[in-house]
């Protein structure tokens, strides 16, 4: 077991969103892949500064929505028209119009399921513990500090180089996070 195995990653603290954004751009341009930015509130433009691609959650939401819409139609057609025909207000047993409001709600419900579970799957959640939560300094992330964290697993990670990079990027506090 070498020293790096005891560490989760390296953490750099910033005071403003602008400084964090500039640091994120530097880290991105160095080609790091296993790293993240943590902030007390969403920062506009951060995904671009981090070089993040469009999230794949949309596919889950779309799939969920499509299942909800067509599944809803199928359900209504089966129940009200096929299995037990029910005449309501002299309307056709099955009509795209009367079933639409329900299918529309089903679309939203299943799209929401899709995005929730898609997000959980893609983030490999739920997980019971994260090394950052042990770090006392990191608690400030819910208050007024911003953090760039680069994991030791990153192929480009080098304790000294990465430390220097984050210092150069303007962080006044850089520390190793224990795993």
């Amino acid at each position, binding site marked *: 077991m070498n020293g790096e195995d005891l560490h989760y990653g390296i953490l750099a603290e910033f005071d*403003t*969103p*602008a400084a964090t954004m500039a640091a994120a751009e530097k880290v991105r341009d160095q080609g790091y892949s296993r790293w993240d930015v943590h902030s007390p509130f969403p920062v*506009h*433009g951060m995904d671009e500064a981090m070089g993040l691609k*469009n999230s794949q959650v*949309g596919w889950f939401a*779309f799939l969920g929505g499509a299942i909800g819409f067509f599944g809803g139609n199928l359900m209504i057609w089966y129940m009200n028209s096929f299995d037990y025909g029910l005449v309501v*207000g*002299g*309307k056709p047993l099955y009509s795209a*119009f*009367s079933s*639409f*409001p329900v299918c529309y709600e089903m679309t939203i419900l299943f799209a929401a399921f899709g995005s929730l579970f898609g997000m959980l799957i893609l983030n490999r959640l739920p997980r019971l513990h994260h090394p950052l939560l042990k770090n006392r300094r990191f608690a400030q992330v819910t208050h007024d500090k911003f953090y760039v964290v680069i994991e030791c697993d990153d192929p480009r990670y080098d304790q000294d180089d990465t430390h220097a990079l984050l210092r150069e990027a303007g962080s006044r506090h850089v520390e190793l996070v224990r795993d």
Partner: protein
Amino acid sequence: MKESIGANDKGRLDLSGWAHWPDRIWQGGAALAALGLVAGWFSGGLMDAFAATYIVAFMFYLSLVLGSLFLVLIHHLFDSYWLVPLRRLLEHLSCQAGIMGLFFVPILGIVLFGSAYAWTQPEGQDHSWHVKSIMYNPVAFTIMSALLFGVWHWLANGLRRHSLAQDNTGAAAATHAMRRYAAGGIFVFAFTLTLGAFYWMKSLEHQWFSTMYGVYYFAGSVWVTLATVYVLTLVLRRTGHLAKVVSPSTFKDIGTLFFAFTVFYAYIAFSQYFLIWNANIPEETYWYVKRDQGLWHGVGLLLIFGHFFVPFLLMLRIDAKLSLTVMIPLGAWAWLMHYTDMSFNVIPAFDWSQAGWSVKLFGLLTAVGAMALMGGALARFLLRDLAAHPPYPQRDPRNAETLNVYVEPLSARSARSSEE
């Protein structure tokens, strides 16, 4: 999605060679429309063709003016930063309400002297006419129409006046004044737009009931305005006017709102249809039954697929909102769809059973004429206003945020210096 909006644009676009086109277009349109009016004077059938196509064109362009006014209003109400670079364009567009008032005169003439609006003819009317005649009579129509244009003119110009004043002074008071306009203005806007849609479009079939008709017109109006603004912003960025202040995220935001209104329009249009379909009351269903005859059945389907499904599915992906190959054709498509929507609302209200091919061909001519007349004139005055003033708010408090620049508040700076 080959070509998409990047951070830097290729060469500057020079449109000065096209500057005289708006004049040519509106003059050509005016000639055609005048021809329509004169021909209509001698023949009832031709008058109907002129009136129908003129009202369609009028409601179409009114959509752009009111849609812009709405975007300016919500910009202030939500204190949004992303709309700041586009606000001047929207202000200029909304200030064309006066020009639209001028184009309203022929419609007033149709009401006072013509028969296109059935409620102007007292013979053979039913109970609904007697009840609604408080609202639908020439005097109320004239007064209310004048009032509506007056209110829009006052609201749009009030907002623009403070915005232009802020270019010089940079005063926060201007922002506060605009917010006050917007806070009251949004209510005034909702009522006046609804009245406009009722008086000028819905009252063609005054027997009909639909309380959501106003919001239906509103949804379509903001929808087509957003499509137009997207393309105009693209052009103004290429010409250099907005090059410094508009970023890909601006386009993403307009695109997102455009997408949202695609859904909102469909929601409203469906709800109107669905409630009437479900209740199945003849006083209401006749409106849709009429629009299920002949060609109009196909037009209705075109609206369902073209106004909703095509834009909805095309813009579903986030990157599609930045793709020029999607968004530019979609902008033109939105114009076509909104025009179709206005036609679907207006044209079947007239009795075309006696109309031959010549009348329909003549209608096509006046349709082109009315669209060219109003479009050309609006473009002309929009360009005049754009040339007369800075292309975007120069000293809006949100400018720095729009450009993604952090400016430390004065209070924070002085607090820090007292610490040191």
